[in-house]
């Protein structure tokens, strides 16, 4: 499915300044793999040594945290937006 990954400012030094990419992916996991394949320097910031999404990296599908959607295995549909938010603050 054609989807868009939106890249926050802090990540863009690993993406040559690119603010978003379009890719074709069936799941969040595939989308993240596409992202880190294109920008290998980002890889260690997205996943930890066990291959899990890093604890302080939050991934959203459109407006929803993917942990409420079944995690990175959740499926994508055409036009979906994937958003990365490092270290959610608040409280």
């Amino acid at each position: 499915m054609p989807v868009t990954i939106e890249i926050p400012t802090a990540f863009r030094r690993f993406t040559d300044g690119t603010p978003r990419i379009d890719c074709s992916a069936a799941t969040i996991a595939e989308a993240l793999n596409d992202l880190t394949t294109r920008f290998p320097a980002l890889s260690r910031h997205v996943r930890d040594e066990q291959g899990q999404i890093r604890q302080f990296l939050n991934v959203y599908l459109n407006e929803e945290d993917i942990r409420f959607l079944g995690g990175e295995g959740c499926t994508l549909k055409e036009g979906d937006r994937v958003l990365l938010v490092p270290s959610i603050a608040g409280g």
Partner: protein
Amino acid sequence: MLRLVRLGSQRSSRYGAMKGEAMSDLYELRCRECGKTWGNSPKSFCEDCFSPLEVSYDYDSLGKKVRREDLAGRTFNMWRYRELLPLAGDVTPASAVGGTPLVASRKLASHWGISNLYFKNDAVCFPSLSFKDRVVATALVAARRFGFETVGCSSTGNLANAVAAQAAQQGFDACVFIPADLEPAKVLNTAVYGARIVRINGNYDHVNRLCAQIADRFKWGLVNVNLRPYYSEGSKTHGYEIAEQLGWRLPDNVVVPMAGGSLITKIAKAFKELTTLGWVEAKPVKFFGAQATGCSPISDGVKRNLARFEPQKPNTIARSLAIGNPADGPFAIKLIRESGGWAEDISDPEIVAAIKLLAETEGIFTETAGGVTAGVTQKLISQGRIGAAETTVVCITGNGLKTTDAIAAEFPLAEAIAPRLDAFEAYLDNQFAAAAAAK
């Protein structure tokens, strides 16, 4: 009028020297995971590993700069600990904040069968009647230092009140973001100060995610986003005051409400700092966290011994604690476990009962978060986790006037009577009859 300045070409300056950066600072930002230092600037996460930042201090130099005895002549508010806060050297804080009572319990302690129970009562913190006044106070010092003209926050209510009040006082424009279903009193208590209020169709976690994007795009000082490391330091003063009010000693137990999980970690940091500086004797303190069952990702993480907490969709009357994805959740869980404490949660009816109990026994009217903390304390005592002879401090963080809707149904208005003595006597007769029938 809000100054809607996009970062645009100024974006690169976020990563360089900021206005007001001082080489003589005895503090700087440090990553809580990898330990890398970042100087002082408006950022909340490490740009290497994307973990949260916090303020770290040069305690050797601080110890030479201020002694405990130096505080004796200072007014009792949070600024008496100014050397232990991230304030630039030439800053004069704008207003008195903190300096709230530590109430020694008699009735409730007796009711619960313990002897040394205290309530740290930030329900009467000025100017906006919650502990959020403390964090906003340090955040706005940072906002001024970094040259922000507009400040804001994502809020479950109390923080919006505090930002709006102090922004008005200090001449900042304020723009706050809240879940659309927030209690009317909390919205009113923000609006009255002239702040712009943006209501979001979603829960707090949706609001918070949006604010992360806004902080990335606009040159605004969002106190609990890009100013969060400085903001959260204000919470330490709640802990300093507890220690000083106990006669410069630490309690055995502290019971703290948890939303994002920051306050409990900052009270621990405060106690550790006082110990490092030699202002109190070192001793183990157990940290207990309190949540509402309808939003309990941290207490759930503690009780199930999870490696990572699981976020939740909040569903509780304790809206000020309704954060399903708590930023400091991992740190709060670690602290609670390592201290030998515990975390618990209670239902909404238990929250209401605890609000009433605290008011009826101690004369403290707290909001729903305080009901959570009081009710959880009762639960911890009944579980035997808090000992009868131990010194226990319960943190009351907000005022009951803000959440009257949560308990209004408990107190239906009595029928009015005529302004005549015989009407009053008839009223008393009816009351006695009703009481007798109820027995």
